[in-house]
């Protein structure tokens, strides 16, 4: 049978899994492997197609009602739930769900499952800019997978996580090396979406090292790899990264074209607030460079709304800073000053020595300039 109709069939699959978890224990035992497979495959598909919110609500309902005594099944359920919380920026909930899974895995002495849980936890911390914890959980996961008949796919996943953790502490050489190792493993598995993600990550690290040509080469490879998949979200991800590269190279028209190709209605349906915030912010920044300030203001204001929903103060402050620039260029001095004040109020809440502190200093200078003009 084909997977081509999965978009419309997803509600039937949700129902099947929901009612599957309600089966009497005896019958449940006969289909537990079926349920575990369905949970995994459905999660994979829903994440690719951006149906996170619907899938999350279904899993929450199952978890709330769940009276299943099968620890392994429960563990899988909580891990999937945690991963969806991470994707929807609900980090405390994500950690809580993975911790529940950890308790269940320890009870049943399932070390391989613990390796998975540490990987998930590393991803949550990475996304929450907790770089040290991300590295620690990544290493714990790597140790377990190395001991237990290393699986290429799992090892590749952990190396990708560790590469990103290295990048986040600006250790770009280590990041590049880890990501290249991950790609080598991924090339030997049939996981095009995962391969494309790591290619995209490597291209970003190369871009940060100003290896523009190489970066463009890996973005092109990532796009080509995605051509055979139906993962729209990953296509958005590559477009965001590639557009940023064009921007940094000063190729603003190409940057604008790349960002404008992003399927915004799809992103809205997926509920992926971060990508919506990034797409609109990046386009706003390009418009400033193209001196189209009205368009820039519209995009940046939209991005600000997404940032507010996410609750990410640093990202919000950055976008407010960009908006103040657009307002200044439009001659709207007072509005620009108010915007800088709002951004600075957010930045003062962030820890010392962080990226937020540097931005704060920049904004204080910017405010002085605007006031003088």
């Amino acid at each position, binding site marked *: 049978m084909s*997977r081509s109709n999965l978009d419309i069939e997803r509600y039937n699959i949700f129902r099947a899994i929901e009612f599957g978890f309600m089966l009497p224990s005896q019958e449940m035992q006969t289909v537990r492997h079926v349920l575990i497979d*369905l949970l995994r495959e459905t999660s994979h598909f829903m994440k690719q197609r951006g149906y996170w919110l619907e899938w999350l609500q279904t899993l929450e309902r199952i978890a709330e009602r769940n009276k299943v005594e099968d620890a392994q099944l429960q563990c899988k359920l909580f891990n999937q739930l945690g991963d969806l919380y991470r994707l929807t920026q609900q980090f405390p909930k994500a950690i809580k769900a993975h911790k529940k899974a950890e308790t269940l895995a320890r009870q049943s002495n399932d070390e391989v499952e613990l390796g998975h849980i540490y990987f998930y936890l590393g991803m949550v911390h990475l996304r929450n800019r907790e770089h040290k914890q991300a590295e620690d959980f990544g290493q714990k996961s790597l140790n377990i997978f190395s001991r237990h008949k290393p699986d290429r796919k799992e090892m590749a996943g952990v190396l990708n996580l560790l590469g990103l953790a290295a990048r986040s502490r600006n250790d770009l050489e280590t990041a590049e090396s880890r990501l290249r190792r991950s790609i080598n493993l991924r090339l030997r598995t049939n996981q095009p979406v995962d391969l494309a993600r790591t290619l995209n990550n490597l291209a970003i690290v190369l871009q940060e090292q100003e290896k523009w040509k190489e970066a463009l080469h890996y973005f092109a490879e990532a796009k080509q790899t995605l051509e055979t998949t139906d993962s729209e979200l990953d296509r958005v991800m590559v477009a965001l990264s590639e557009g940023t590269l064009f921007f940094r190279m000063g190729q603003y028209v190409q940057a604008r074209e790349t960002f404008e190709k992003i399927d915004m209605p799809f992103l809205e349906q997926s509920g992926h607030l971060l990508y919506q915030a990034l797409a609109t912010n990046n386009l706003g920044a390009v418009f400033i460079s193209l001196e189209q300030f009205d368009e820039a203001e519209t995009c940046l204001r939209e991005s600000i709304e997404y940032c507010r929903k996410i609750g990410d103060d640093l990202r919000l402050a950055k976008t407010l800073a960009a908006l103040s620039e657009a307002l200044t260029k439009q001659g709207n001095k007072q509005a620009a000053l108010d915007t800088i004040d709002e951004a600075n109020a957010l930045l003062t809440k962030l820890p010392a020595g962080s990226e937020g502190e540097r931005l704060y200093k920049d904004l204080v200078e910017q405010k002085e300039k605007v006031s003088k003009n």
Partner: protein
Amino acid sequence: MAHAQSGKRINLNTFGGLLRHYRHRCIDWERNSRLLSQERLGELIGQKLGISGYSGAAISDWERNKSHINKDERRVLLSLIEVMHTGGGIKSLDEANQLLLAGNYRDLNQAELQLIDKEWLNQKTAESNQYSYSTAEEQEALLPPATYTRLFGIEEKKAIICQHLLSSNPPYVVIITGIGGIGKSTIADTVARQLIQTRHFAQVIWLSTNTSNDQTSEANSSSTFANLVTKLGERLLPNTLERESVERQLFQVRRELKKRPNLIILDNLEGDISLHFWENLRRLTNPSKFLLTSRIYPPDTSDFYLLNLSELPLKSSIGLLRHQALIVGSTELSHLTDQNLTDIYNIVGGNPFALRLVAKLAIIYSLPQIQASLKRGQTGAIAQMYMDIYHEVWQTLQQTEKQLLQTMLLVGYTGALVEQLQIISKLDEDNFEQALHQLINYSLIEPRGNIYTQRYGIHSLTAQYLQNQKETSDMTFTESNLVNLKYWHEYLAIDS
């Protein structure tokens, strides 16, 4: 209607039957003969037209409905009527028009009356002076009181129905189907009120029908149709048909409906309505139109427009809940967040009847109490609601139909393909098809796909009712549940 004549039965509902009936009453006044033969009738028509005339065989074909007079050959028709009127076969204007009606020809107009019989013209003028249409206000006053104060989510459907009813082309019958409480009568009511104001129809007549199930299908249909004719007669021709036979009433009513466009609304057409009813109904249409509401899909009605009402979407349901809460004074409910109201929607779906009931109950009970009660469906007004909507039809379902309906709990709101349903219901092909067909007829399962891929689903409220009906230890359902999991496992081609 049939007459015994010379040992043969004549069908007086057809043009040919009536023609023969009238000819048998005719004398040949020129030859002083008590019988007007087919040959002679053809000859006399020819004389009137100034041509050589028609053969006896041609007249015979008309009488056996083997051939008919073309509508464009109006002069032939007029000559035929004139000859038969002179010979005493057609005694009145009514009889002349009855013959025309049976052949789907229009009534005689004033010029034609003048030509055939001036007395008929005077009679018609007197009738017209006697007749006066009801005003819009009078017609509206005869509608049942509206049960709503504001409408939610039905504008598009209402527009479609009005468009079909206002068109002078087919469809002449529009049928709104759907489960109880879904808003069929509400749409019909609002359509009626709007169309009364347009003055497009001579009259907009609302008839509530009640049929009982204790009669056989044929008898039931006949009596339903006879009741319809009587009720229509009372409204279209007040005080004139009281002592008339059903056949006579039918003729007059049909004539009235054919004469000018009327809109007849038959609300709540229930019970086992056979093909016979629909055939008879069809004869009353054009230019008049019919709007019907029913829980049951009609049988073979390829020339009718069917509109199956689905649940209201979330936004409209929330709007209705808030509005209704304000109307009944349940202010706390009206101020609940969209998320809280969505929780209610997730249980009852977009069934307006159920949503209104929730608003009413919120005055007395807490929201968690109402939600729990909706899920259990065992007590008070909520149990009564389930009873009103589902109980009667549930009792009439066969075991296989119940089995398939229970299976629908495993189906999401976009509906399932036939292939999935048949596999998970565990019914053989014949039983499955029969059960599916019947459940669609009862509006318990609704088609949700498109012309290329048909899918089937149930309303949220139906799912809730089924959930209440279902025994947790129900082995048949458990088996379907297991088969369903394996179905999707296979569908995703998972290599374990």
